[in-house]
């Protein structure tokens, strides 16, 4: 039994070891510059980040893509998720609570590839025909939305599908954290003459804020590593664009798209190093989230989610 328990450590160690060993080539050749260097195309004098044939690799566009899509996802998902959690814990009629909780649980379990399938056939056409032209028209002056990509794919599509995917996780954890705030706290605030909203803001949200931050960070961890759904809608281009409507690529999607057909050892090593970076980052992000959530929910019985 103890051995089975210890196997968890073995797996983490094994993953780290194998990833480091397999990324030796690029680790030696580029060092830390791998994460930010920029090459120039000798023919066109344009910026070049990823050229497997000439063995020039830089993780910069993928880090950028991961950060931008995850940030967009959090921007969309966090306010909604907290709203949903407040509704479910504080004002939802008891009849609705069960089915809604069940629905969120179910959504958290839907495979990534199915979200991707839905996004390709429903979300992307919707964005392409209605939302993107509107964004270009109203916010085009900021330079963040330019209409040079007619496909509808890109960072915005990735951000929206990621937001839909991490919403259930954030809202169910926030709900759990909020339900650990003792009832006496709520009653005390109400007894001081607060309205229901003031009670929620001062009595519940303030007390649960560390746990809420924890659940948001956990959602971020999921968004960083999400692969298939993003790979299907982000457009797969190792480039950096200011426009959020242009094609991009994230750390996870480049691995999924290129690993099985990599052109050489250097290419494999570069992709593995990106995987290693993703592994280290998600380990840190998840550990931080666990600590924060644990700080709030400890002492109360845990639930299956």
């Amino acid at each position, binding site marked *: *039994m103890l051995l089975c328990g210890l196997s*968890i450590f073995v797996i983490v160690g094994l*993953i780290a070891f194998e990833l480091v060993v397999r990324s030796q080539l690029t680790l030696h050749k580029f060092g830390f510059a791998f994460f930010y260097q920029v090459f120039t195309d000798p023919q066109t004098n344009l910026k070049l980040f990823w050229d497997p044939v000439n063995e020039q690799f830089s993780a910069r566009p993928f880090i950028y893509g991961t950060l931008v899509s995850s940030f967009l996802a959090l921007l969309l998902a966090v306010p909604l998720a*907290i709203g949903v959690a407040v509704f*479910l814990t504080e004002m939802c009629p008891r009849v609705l609570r069960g089915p809604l909780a069940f629905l969120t649980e179910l959504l958290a379990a839907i495979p990534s590839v199915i979200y991707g399938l839905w996004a390709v056939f429903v979300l992307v056409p919707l964005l392409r025909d209605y939302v993107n032209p509107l964004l270009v028209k109203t916010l085009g002056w900021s330079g963040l939305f330019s209409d040079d990509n007619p496909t509808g794919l890109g960072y915005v599509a990735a951000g929206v599908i990621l937001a839909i995917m991490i919403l259930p996780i954030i809202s169910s954890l926030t709900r759990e954290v909020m339900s650990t705030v003792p009832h006496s706290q709520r009653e005390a605030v109400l007894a001081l003459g607060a309205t229901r909203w003031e009670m929620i803001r001062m009595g519940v949200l303030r007390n649960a804020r560390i746990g809420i931050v924890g659940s948001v960070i956990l959602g971020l961890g999921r968004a960083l590593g999400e692969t298939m759904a993003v790979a299907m809608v982000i457009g797969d281009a190792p480039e950096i664009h200011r426009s959020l409507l242009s094609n991009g690529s994230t750390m996870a999607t480049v691995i999924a798209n290129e690993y099985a057909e990599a052109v050489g050892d250097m290419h494999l090593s570069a992709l593995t190093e990106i995987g290693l970076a993703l592994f280290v980052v998600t380990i840190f992000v998840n550990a931080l989230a666990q600590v924060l959530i644990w700080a709030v929910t400890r002492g109360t019985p845990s639930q299956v989610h």
Partner: protein
Amino acid sequence: MTGLAILATVIVIVPLIAIFGYLIYKGASSLNFAFFTKSPAPVGELGGGMANAILGSAIVLALASAIGVPIGIGGGIYLAEFGRGTKLAAAIRFTADVLNGVPSIVMGLAAYALIVVPMKHFSAYAGGVALGFMMIPTVCRTSEEMLLMVPNAIREAALGLGVPNWRSVLSITVKTASPGIITGCMLAFARVAGETAPLVFTALGNQFWSTNLNQPIAALPLQIYVYALSPYDDWHRLAWAGSLVLIVLIVFAVSLVRYVTSRGVLKGAS
């Protein structure tokens, strides 16, 4: 403000129901008998099914369960019974939760390095190992939670009759919690059943009927991915049908877990 919270819920619920509705509508209209009995038709021909992918998924998942379930349950028993309250158990629990959040594609990379590189080709084994690793932390944590739901009085009763601790754990506690542990395993099974990213460069996929564990093998989520991005309407139809099959599996597992846990103390324990 109350309005805002309700609005947020509505904004969230509407697309979610839209996803479900669309999926069931598209899936149900595409699903037919051939889907379960035929292998994919050659490009350009209509018809065909995903029988090879369903078989492939079953094989890879059987391999994954053979790795993930025993180790996971063992770990869960350690956490809940033998290591309860120790620092080591806390560290294992924490690591398991963190491992749960590691992107599935990284698991794929690890399986690639462990299995594909020494064997020099893609295989069902590699896919099974990747998914098995992913099952361990989930099974471990759910089994632990199910075991903790067993009331202490039962353990004390067993010990009071002079049964040694290991015997009481195995034949009393684990037996009482077994419906919960089994459903926990089913949930982990359903979750990895839909995983695509770790299979892309381990199991690789296969257009033909294959039962050879040593060769690339098809899997349902992989096939959905390939078909979704293809230009053929008939392949899109198969992708929707495949998604519906996966979703039904997951709805079934999630409802079962809910049913078992909502009965509070497990059957036979009270």
